């Protein structure tokens, strides 16, 4: 081979050989231009142009008008509730979702198939149905609300009600993000830890938790992102009192009902900004998770 090469003495990294990976092999699969063009056209018409309309509408406002709408005391309280309740709900789901994923992957118990199927209920059940159902369950006269009322605990028509609805809506995200990672966790690492004298608790804390942390954070972020924008399941149980139990998406809907699309857009741009940051965070977390496995 070396004898046949024209530059027998040159180093093995031949310039043309090094450049080679840059040349893309043209795919023999047909239809590239047509399908890519159609994809970009439909994506623009359905998603990009309407979403940019929100940003352009808000950008057309004077800074004072924008601030008055997007950062009014009422709006600030709505963000505080939306982000705070979403964070707490994601924390609750982070704990119970992790336990659920662990039980589904590691244990066998009666009714496991049923638990596995019903975990996806929040994906399949319309949010309005979840909303009215949670509202009557947690109302002071409901099955759960009536049980809690004697202890002075009010859930429905309260910020706590918002939390309950957001826990419902976010549960599958943590479970379904953790499950595949737990399933692929090599058991011999745990065996090695136990062999070296680590107790089960130490093994979980020092071996398993670090391995599943990126996936757990991804599930947490997905549940949080979903909860921030949630509307249907919340409005029935929240009571929707300004400065108390009014979420940010509801405020947008109410500005729209008064035909104030500028104010609605200003609040929406704040929500879009947070959604964009969450998207960046989730992408970063997923890249981290991929590097770990």
């Amino acid at each position, binding site marked *: 081979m070396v004898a046949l090469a024209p530059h027998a003495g040159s180093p093995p990294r031949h310039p043309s050989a090094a450049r080679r990976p840059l040349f893309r092999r043209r795919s023999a699969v047909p239809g590239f231009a047509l399908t890519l063009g159609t994809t970009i056209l439909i994506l623009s018409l359905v998603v990009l142009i309407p979403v940019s309309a929100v940003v352009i509408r808000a950008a057309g406002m004077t800074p004072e008008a924008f601030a008055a709408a997007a950062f009014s005391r009422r709006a600030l309280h709505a963000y505080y509730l939306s982000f705070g309740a979403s964070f707490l709900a994601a924390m609750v789901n982070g704990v119970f979702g992790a336990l659920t994923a662990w039980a589904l992957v590691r244990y066998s118990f009666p009714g496991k198939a049923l638990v596995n199927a019903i975990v996806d209920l929040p994906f399949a059940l319309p949010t309005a149905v979840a*909303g009215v*159902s949670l509202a009557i369950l947690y109302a002071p006269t409901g099955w759960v609300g009536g049980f809690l009322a004697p202890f002075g605990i009010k859930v429905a028509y309260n910020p706590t009600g918002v939390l309950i609805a957001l826990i419902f809506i976010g549960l599958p995200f943590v479970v379904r993000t953790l499950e595949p990672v737990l399933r692929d966790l090599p058991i011999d690492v745990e*065996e090695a830890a136990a062999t070296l004298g680590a107790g089960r608790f130490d093994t979980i804390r020092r071996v398993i938790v670090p391995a599943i942390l990126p996936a757990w954070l991804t599930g947490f972020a997905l549940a949080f992102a979903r909860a921030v924008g949630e509307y249907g399941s919340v409005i029935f149980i929240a009571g929707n009192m300004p400065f108390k139990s009014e979420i940010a998406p509801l405020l947008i809907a109410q500005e729209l009902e008064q035909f104030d699309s500028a104010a609605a857009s200003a609040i929406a741009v704040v929500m879009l900004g947070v959604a964009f940051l969450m998207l960046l965070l989730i992408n970063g977390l997923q890249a981290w998770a991929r590097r770990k496995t």
Partner: protein
Amino acid sequence: MSLTAPSAAKIGHPNIGREPLWVRVVVIGVVIAFVTLMLVLPLIAVFAQALSKGLSPFVEAIGQPDSLSAIGLTLITAAIAVPFNAAFGVIAAWAIAKHRFVGKSLLVSLIDVPFSISPVVAGLAYILVFGLQGWAGSWLIDHDIKIIFAVPGIVLATIFVTFPFVARQLIPLMQAQGVDEEEAAASLGASALKTFWRVTAPNIRWGLLYGVLLCNARAMGEFGAVSVVSGHIRGLTDTMPLHVEILYNEYDFVGAFAVAALLCLLAIVTLILKAALEAFQPEVAANAV
């Protein structure tokens, strides 16, 4: 330390890969209690409320003309939005999974945008484009076309919120399958359409069905985006989830929960079909979230 201790632990130590019995029992108990309280109980409550006055008020509530027209509008909306997004998903997955080009990951992220946007913001976006004072507003008035506060707006809002479902199922599936079979078909002289129907379609049909199933559940159940653009005109722009809200706000609990019970049945059927697909075609569930 003696050499025998570790190997004895490896064979017989109860701590390897397993928690003590009481821990397992507690974890399983907590999981079952949490799932029952948060997921099963709301489902039971819907049926209990719907049937609280017996079967005949339930049937009567569903037989109301407004309820029937809401069911009809929900079916029409899903019948347009789901095939549209299924076709888009197949086309987008073909371009993205079977070819190499610059900006691919950006395109995939942009397709996912509707999942990270509040449904209410989606509704607002369509009002800003098609509403009276929107970009297309005056043109639509001149041509006597009504989109916002009418059925087309409901269909468009539904298409937006369910946009990524099929594409995000098919892209990883088709990427995993590679291009060898399609290249072989093309090199043997098969046309593009023939390659798709005879080679690709049989490989992706279960993944496509899985995406369509999730897309349909969301399309029939969407509330926030549709609520903003619908105008809540009873019997005209009232989908099933919106009708639940109207009846609930009128304190017609039997009626509201009767319609809600139908939507629960839809969710239950969706979950059963999903579980069946995951059992028989495990690779389709790779991208469940």
